[in-house]
Structure formats: C-alpha cells, structure tokens
C-alpha cells in the first residue's frame, strides 16, 4: 500500500464528496416520486380487457389441453376455431393502431420518460462541474491510463498529475452508476429512479405496442390453436396410480365431520 502522494484538505471531503453523494441519491429518490406523480392513467376499455382475457384463455387451452379429456378439448377448440361461428373467426374489432406520432398519450409518455431521466443527470452534472471545479476531489483506487485524463480531470490543468486523481464531475458520474442498484434496495422493485431499466424498456418498447392490433393477435392465436393436437397425458393414469404404493397416512383427518348426514 503506497502512501498517496497528495494530501487533500479535509474541507474538500466534508463539503464536496459527501454533498455530491447526497445530491445524487436524493435526486434519484425525487425522480422516483416524480415519475409516480406524472404517470398517466392508462384507460382500458372493457372490450380490451375481455379480448386479452380471451387470448389468455386460448393460450392456456393450448398449453394444458392434454389434461382434459379429448371431448372437452375438442369442444373448446370448436368454440374458438369453428369455420362459421368460431370466436376467432367471427369477431373483427375496429382497430386503429396507435403509432408514436399520432397517438398523443404515447408521445407524452415518451417525452416524460426522456425528461425525467436524462435531463436531470445532464443538468446536475453540468452544475456540479461548474460549482466544484478547479480542484482534485478524490483518488480512484485503481490505476488509469493517461487517455482518461481529459475526461476525468476536467478543471485541473496539471500535466504530470496521475490520472487516478479525479475531479468532482467524474465522482458524480461514478455515483450515478453505482447508486443505480442501490435504489432497488431502498425503493423496492419497479422504482422510477433506475435509468438502465427504463432504457432497456424503451428499446424493447416497440414490441409492446402489439396488443393494440387485436385482429392480428386473434389470427395468430387461431393458427396456433389449429395446429395443436390433443395428446392425452392422463391415458394410463389408473394403472400408474394402482401400481404405486398408496400412502394415505395423514390424508384424511379423523375429526372431519361428515356434512351429508
């Protein structure tokens, strides 16, 4: 452990390092609560809810069809897929697919997402850079190459200073990245302060606009249901049960009153 070659004023520690930590953390918490306040109410119609439930029911039928008798399965499949009056064939919904440009609520959602996440980080980073400039803030414990110097030592004009001594702006960004996972400790899951999750959601958000087009979803579900075949998994269930040792201890309680007589 080599002795650090610079000795910094304790005031820096008290008035720069700690405030930056607090500022970063509190801004994150504020951002979480602001995002909760600004959440626009998603209006769902009854028809949308019932449509999504129908799709779920059809999917469950496909996945678990093998546990009901063949007759029951065919009956349900017939209800959905019949040529003349099956549910998926008959219902055509009037659908206007909302694109990000035309649908106002989606546009404001995107704007709110961008504003509450990226903008404060840039603003506060700039402010911190302006306020706490011109001195060395702390030393990172690992050696860095000289290429990082202009990035990490923004206000300091020393050519021979080791690249490990960083300025306050880089300490701020280190805080932003490091506290990201701490937010899920403190604010619980699904918190609005975690930027990385939101950016991931924005990238996969294009896939989530699909449910608006229910006609396509119905058609896809119809095809999938057509393809599924009934293979009864319970075919030899009587022999299996009888061939095993039946362990009935504790299955019936003696105190259970009979409700019939």
């Amino acid at each position, binding site marked *: 452990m080599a002795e650090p070659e610079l000795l910094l004023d304790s005031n820096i520690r008290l008035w720069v390092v700690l405030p930056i930590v607090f500022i970063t953390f509190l801004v994150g918490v504020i951002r979480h609560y602001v995002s909760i306040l600004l959440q626009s109410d998603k209006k769902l119609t009854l028809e949308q809810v019932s449509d999504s439930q129908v799709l779920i029911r059809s999917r469950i039928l496909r996945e678990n069809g093998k546990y009901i008798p063949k007759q029951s399965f065919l009956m349900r499949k017939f209800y959905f897929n019949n040529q003349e009056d099956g549910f998926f064939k008959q219902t055509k919904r009037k659908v206007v697919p909302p694109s990000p440009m035309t649908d106002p609520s989606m546009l404001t959602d995107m704007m709110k997402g961008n504003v509450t996440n990226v903008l404060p980080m840039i603003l506060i980073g700039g402010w911190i850079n302006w306020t706490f400039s011109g001195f060395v803030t702390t030393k990172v414990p690992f050696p860095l190459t000289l290429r990082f110097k202009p990035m990490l030592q923004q206000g300091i004009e020393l050519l021979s200073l080791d690249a490990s001594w960083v300025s306050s702006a880089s300490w701020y960004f*280190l805080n932003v990245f490091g*506290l990201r*996972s701490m937010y899920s400790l403190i604010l619980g899951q699904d918190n609005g302060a975690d930027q990385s999750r939101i950016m991931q959601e924005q990238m996969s958000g294009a896939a989530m606009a699909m449910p608006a087009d229910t006609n396509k979803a119905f058609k896809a579900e119809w095809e999938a249901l057509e393809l599924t075949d009934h293979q009864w998994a319970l075919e030899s269930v009587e022999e299996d049960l009888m061939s095993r040792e039946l362990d009935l201890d504790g299955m019936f309680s003696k105190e259970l009153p009979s409700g019939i007589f």
Partner: protein
Amino acid sequence: MAGVVAKREGPQFISEVSVRGNAAVLDYCRTSLSALSGATAGILGLTGLYGFIFYLISAFLLSLLLILKAGRRWNKCFKSRRLLFTGGLVGGLFTYVLFWTFLYGMVHVY
C-alpha cells in the same frame, strides 16, 4: 425464497410472480454484498488489481453460499444454477467500485 415449480412429468407450471420475487432477492443479496465488500476494500486500502480480485472472490463466495442455501431442491426455485453465479455481476461491480472509491478516499486520502 418462494417455491415456484411443481415438478411433474411434463411441462412445469411456473409462477411469474415468484420468479420475479426470487430474482429480486438475489439482486438484494448481491447489491448488499457489493456495497459491503467495496467498503471493506476501501478501508483496507486495496488498490488496482487486488481490488478487482477481491470483488471476484467475494462474488464467488456469495454464489457458493447461495447454492448452499438453495440446497438439493434448487430446481424448485430457480431455472438454472448459472443464474446464481452470474446474476447482477456488472451492477454489483459498479456499486463495488463506488463504495471502494468512497472509503478509500475517506480513509487514505484525507
């Protein structure tokens, strides 16, 4: 950790809520460990490569402890054991570096 899977012959029934809850618990453990080990590394004054090796060792120890805790019936709660090893490593690394730098600065620079 909530048991999520009823093991039968055939497809398994998986409760989404429980999977997310278990992942949250893992995340919690890993973040706490990263914070504490970062603080330890800062106080001890580890620099450079030693610091990163310390993080890898502590992450590995956490994985071992999690596997011990999950026990024989781990497939009741997790789809694969790899998740116990590698879940949240990079996020934990950032937290580790933050706490490491912070305490190193507190203790050794000032």
